[in-house]
């Protein structure tokens, strides 16, 4: 049995920060194997791995929560669209999907999809891509999965999301190093080069790299699907939160007004999509999962300036819970400036819309049930699932 320690907090965790703090606490210390925030937010009880130093773990937890709650401002979420319906299915679906061979886990956050689960992911991607390339003239791209750390430095990624980074390493070009990897597994860690690359945490960074350090000839819409990687520690769960997941993005670069209009139009596109899929859904203001250094200030900025919206889909097996299946992000000229993409005497403005395909599919199964053949005919038609 693991030891438990209750850590009193200098400031209570406000109700609107509980989810953010709970998520980040998983990253506080490797010796912490579980945590629970007290109902009144005044303390955190942590479970420790055998041999973990309680004082050091408590200090890390305390510092993390303190960093996230200092100067906190309550900024209510603003709902910009809602389609609230009573989901037809309310039972848990994970066990049935596993039993039916539709999903399995290779490890924490690493999911294998098969059969109908693959069909739903592909159908969603087809529907979104058709809209993006048709109505928005988005040009297709296929980007690498690896991205240079230098590119993410330029995007200031590590100062905002250091906890999510998954570095990719290769063996040093050296005969002894190669031999060590081949024959002495215990020495592998010492013979790796880098880290010069990261497994991409999002697709849109590649678009800024592609267009870097030159003027933008015309306003531009791009679309690409990529495998994305975000380390989530103990937060991995079902298909809701994966380490390795599929993201379909539509990226807009151009003048401020046009870029903003495209993002707004995608809120409307999504509204039509979730209505056709008969989903219990809404779109609201949101903040990115910044780590403590930037969390308080960036969260405040995003929430008051409406620079991020999220599509929330209800998870009826857990009343009150929902997941974010898509996000709508306005960057102003932040990435244009960071990557030297000139436009109209200044820097290009950018926005992007990203759909988490496994998450979206998971919510469809959760709301309509594990058996695709039992889904409403209108939903099957909207996804062209009948061939």
């Amino acid at each position: 049995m693991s030891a438990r320690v209750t850590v009193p907090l200098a400031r209570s965790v406000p109700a609107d920060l509980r989810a953010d703090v709970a998520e980040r606490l998983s990253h506080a210390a490797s010796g912490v194997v579980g945590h629970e925030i007290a109902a009144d937010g005044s303390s955190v009880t942590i479970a420790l791995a055998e041999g973990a130093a309680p004082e050091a773990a408590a200090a890390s937890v305390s510092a993390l929560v303190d960093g996230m709650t200092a100067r906190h401002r309550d900024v209510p979420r603003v709902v910009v669209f809602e389609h609230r319906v009573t989901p037809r299915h309310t039972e848990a679906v994970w066990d049935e999907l596993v039993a039916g061979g539709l999903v399995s886990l290779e490890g924490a956050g690493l999911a294998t999809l098969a059969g109908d689960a693959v069909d739903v992911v592909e159908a969603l991607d087809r529907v979104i891509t058709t809209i993006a390339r048709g109505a928005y003239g988005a040009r297709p791209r296929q980007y690498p999965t690896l991205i240079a750390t230098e590119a993410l430095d330029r995007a200031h990624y590590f100062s905002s999301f250091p906890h999510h980074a998954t570095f990719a390493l290769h063996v040093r070009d050296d005969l002894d190093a190669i031999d060590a990897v081949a024959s002495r597994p215990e020495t592998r860690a010492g013979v790796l080069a880098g880290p010069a690359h990261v497994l991409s945490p999002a697709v849109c960074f590649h678009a800024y790299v592609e267009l870097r350090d030159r003027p933008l000839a015309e306003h531009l819409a791009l679309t690409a699907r990529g495998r994305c990687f975000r380390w989530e520690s103990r937060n991995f769960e079902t298909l809701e939160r994966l380490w390795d997941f599929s993201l379909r993005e539509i990226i807009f670069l151009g003048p401020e007004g046009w870029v903003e209009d495209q993002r707004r139009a995608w809120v409307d596109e999504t509204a039509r999509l979730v209505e056709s899929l008969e989903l219990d859904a809404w779109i609201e203001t949101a903040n990115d999962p910044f780590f403590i250094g930037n969390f308080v200030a960036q969260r405040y900025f995003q929430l008051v300036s409406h620079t991020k919206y999220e599509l929330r889909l209800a998870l009826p097996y857990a009343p009150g819970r929902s997941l974010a299946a898509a996000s709508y992000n306005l960057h102003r000229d932040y990435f244009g400036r960071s990557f030297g993409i000139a436009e109209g005497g200044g820097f290009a403005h950018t926005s992007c819309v990203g759909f988490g395909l496994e998450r979206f599919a998971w919510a469809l199964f959760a709301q309509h049930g594990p058996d695709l053949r039992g889904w409403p005919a209108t939903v099957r038609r909207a996804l062209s699932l009948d061939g």
Partner: protein
Amino acid sequence: MGETIEEALRRFLVGELGLPPEVAVDSPLAESGLLVSAQLLEVVVFVEDTYGVVMRPVDAVPEKMRSIATIAGVVRERLRERGAA
């Protein structure tokens, strides 16, 4: 005569947030990259601490944080409200 709201804001932006000394009352702050997103909260905290007003989320939207002049306008509005209460 005491410092005006505009002068106090300018002193804070230049002295504490590192904006260039030539920043004018009507210089666009965010659009020109002078004021980065993470500094918005610092401006709000400065205003609240200095003038004893409460800034609401709607006070910190980009249109109202566009320049020293627009921020000063919000401060005056909140001061008027406080005075009327």
